[in-house]
């Protein structure tokens, strides 16, 4: 019954035998011990489990590990690969965009996707873009500010001539 999958996670290649029903989030957390990706609901709504699969933000609770076969996955742990915080992580830190921290990894991954597609979002666009991520602590305002801050950081970075 088990299937063999090849997945690259945060730049590391893995070959694993998994039950077809194994959810990607369980694969990441339980097989690879990458516990930064969280589970907050059972109905694909809270976004705590958001990761990038081939550069696209997805809810890893709504993807089978077998569906990620051949893909490149980036989890929150992969956002600080070189030891430096990603601008979105910096924004969350500077603007107190988190309290209990549980929704935060998914929120950061979703925010990064948002800024990749729209480097200069309005407040409304940020709120709309984070609709797939629930936070119970912050009331979202500091998250909005964190994303705005990250946008500024990313812009000033790209403004520097290569």
């Amino acid at each position, binding site marked *: 019954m088990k299937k063999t999958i090849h997945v690259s996670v945060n730049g590391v290649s893995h070959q694993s035998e998994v*039950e077809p*029903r*194994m959810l990607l989030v369980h694969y990441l*957390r339980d097989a690879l*011990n*990458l*516990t*930064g*990706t*969280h*589970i*907050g*609901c*059972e*109905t694909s*709504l*809270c976004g*705590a489990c958001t990761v990038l699969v081939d550069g696209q933000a997805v809810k890893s609770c709504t993807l089978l590990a077998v569906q990620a076969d051949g893909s490149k996955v980036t*989890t*929150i*742990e992969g*956002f*600080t690969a070189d030891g430096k*915080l990603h601008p979105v*992580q910096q924004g*969350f*830190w*500077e603007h*107190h965009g*988190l*309290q*209990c*921290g*549980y*929704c*935060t*990894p998914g929120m*950061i991954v979703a925010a990064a996707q948002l800024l990749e597609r729209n480097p200069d979002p309005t*407040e*409304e666009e*940020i*709120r*709309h873009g*984070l*609709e797939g*991520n*629930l*936070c*119970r*602590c*912050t*009331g*979202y*305002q*500091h*998250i*909005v500010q964190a994303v705005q801050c990250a946008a500024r950081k990313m812009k000033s970075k790209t403004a520097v001539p290569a």
Partner: protein
Amino acid sequence: MAEKLVGQRLKRTEDPRLIKGLAHYVDDIRLPDTLHAVFVRSIYAHARIKSVDVSAASKAPGVVAVYTGKDVSQKIGPVPCAAALPDLKVPDHRVLATSKVYFVGHPIAVVVAHDKYAAKDAADLIQVDYEELPVALDEEKAAQGGPVIHEQFGTNISYKLTAGEGDIEAALKSADKVIKQRILHRRLAPIAMEGRGVLARYYPGEQELTLWTSTQIPHLARTQVALMLGIPENKLRLIAPEVGGGFGSKLNVYAEEALLGWIAMQTGKPIKWIEGRRENIQATIHGRGQTGYIEIGFKKDGTITGFRYNVFADMGAYHQLLTPAIPTLTGLMLSGCYKIPAIQINVTGVFTNKMSTDAYRGAGRPEATFVIERAMDLVAADLGMDVVELRRKNFPAPSEFPFKTATGLFYDSGNYEGALKKALDMASYSKLREEQKQARKEGRLMGVGVSTYVEICAIGPSAATPAGGWESATVRVEPTGKVTILTGCSPHGQGEETSFAQIAADELGVDVNDVAVIHGDTAIVQYGIGTFGSRGLAVGGSAVYLALQKVKEKANKIAAHLLECDAQKVSFKDGKFSCSGKDGKQVTIQEVALTAYVAKNIPPDMEPGLAAIHFFEPKNFTFPFGTHIAVVELDRETGEIHFKRYVAVDDCGNVINPMLVDGQVQGGIVQSLGQALYEEVVYDEQGQLVSGTFMDYALPKASMVPWLELDRTETPTNVNPMGVKGVGEAGTIGATPAIVAAIVDALAPYGVRHIDMPIKPEHIWRIINQKKAGAA
């Protein structure tokens, strides 16, 4: 001089691990050979269990054990209720149901398997044969008759309680008018983003049990779980690791915590249970759940003469830790920020076939604030008086503090007018009223809601709490000069690792990064109470502050010894001790610390080391306050609600870290907005939970929330040494009445005076539509 950190928007020291995904919540802790537990829960609200067939499940692949109520109910003590009230009926609450189930989600059996997939598969094989029984669901009806849930009591009434001071009958009689209104507070699910979770490990050699559990109260939970399991408290180590939110739902002791510990002792292997979201909405405590009747008496000039609140409080099927105590907090806060000579609350606590209610952010106080604020608006509407003017008329002046209420409290300090004025200015209140007039002329439905609130925080003096209202702190300056703080107040998002470090860094003149705040592990931290009731800083922080003073006092003596100076002449600044009269000679706190541990050159008769412990007992609660103003416009065709403005001025006394305060207020307001507009745990007529997932239970999303315009006033308290009051629940308490008032105000042209929460667009549409039809 080094800049003081207290008062600064310091970035949180706990954040790096959280934003990198490297923190450890219960499910992130991995122990080899861990077993996994999955529960089988009742699908009926009330039923007799005829049989539980576990034979197929027991034989399923990967299954280690299956336990039912029969196996454990005599081996594990009852789930505790710490609330003590006269003649309180407390049902025997076992960790698994035995002969009957009382609510949907009531645990019946637990499957233990090598992995969670196998455990879930086996759980599906368990056959429970039920005989359905009639249900009691509505707290008001259940109090009056119908099916009795706990037969031994012969009634669904758990307790009745009357409280308040002043002659309420006379007060209402002397009024020019009395207004009555029925007000519902629906059931809410706290929904911490991390649900509950438990990991248990037993060390048979040491006979020690370690329990990692997502809790707000590690020490209280340790005591209670040890009692349930019949093991010595000092052989149970309870650890609250990273905790993903609580909002009161983890201020409790749950069946699963004791049961997992017991299973670890039976199997000798680590065992883990992680709550799913459906389980969370079914079987983690709910909040609110009151059907209330208010009566407010007033004079023609707007003076309030008396206020009565008769309330049926929905307990659910069992008493969890504080269930029956929550409505008593409602009683305490019925005076709001007004001078009311006579107040009475009559509580009827009622059992229903639902999950227990208990503390949810605000815990009884939002209900009080909501009813008194609604009452004030009803009075204003009746008198044709502006809602602000009426409030002002009944405020105590700053000079009247400490202010005694007819609910038996002394409000510590307050300047209600100050916060109100600031909020009115921010909102341009008179301009808003002009705008509203114009809008009404144009046929637009614009509303302005104002709530002036006061809350009871920093819970609390021990005399007024079920199990200790103090808090503890140990401060250790280690030999290298690093500072370790052990707080009994284990946080779960509040940022105490940062705010406590700010205090310590200022007091000891050390780098804030040299301060580590440790919490949540009962084997490391001295006994403490926990984080709830907006007490973390005001009580826990005060303990830290006072322990720091003790450390400084001792350090001062050592410094005097080293400086060969009279202790009185030693001064301490920026981490350095110096001796007045002996210019230039200094010794640092780090040097003092090393000296204290090397202990070759300390004053004779002095104990070596540099550490102190303090148990802080506050002499009163604190009473933060503020004004919230909501401005809405309603879509008159569809009833949809659009926020135009949201302004809040909160006063939580002195502020240690403004950024953290803003975060608490914002989060609280949005939970309040959820309660006002979206959230409701709904059981149908059979007691089935119909809002059991996020598909039906609506948490506010980013797009549903307006920009919040916030400011503060700062009126310190003298209840604690730093003059801080607490802010964790302010938003949840102040915002709900403002939002509801704004909608009611928008609908005032239709003669509407009150609408029950959650106010859905359909309610608004019906009001508009019916009046239209009526007029035609």
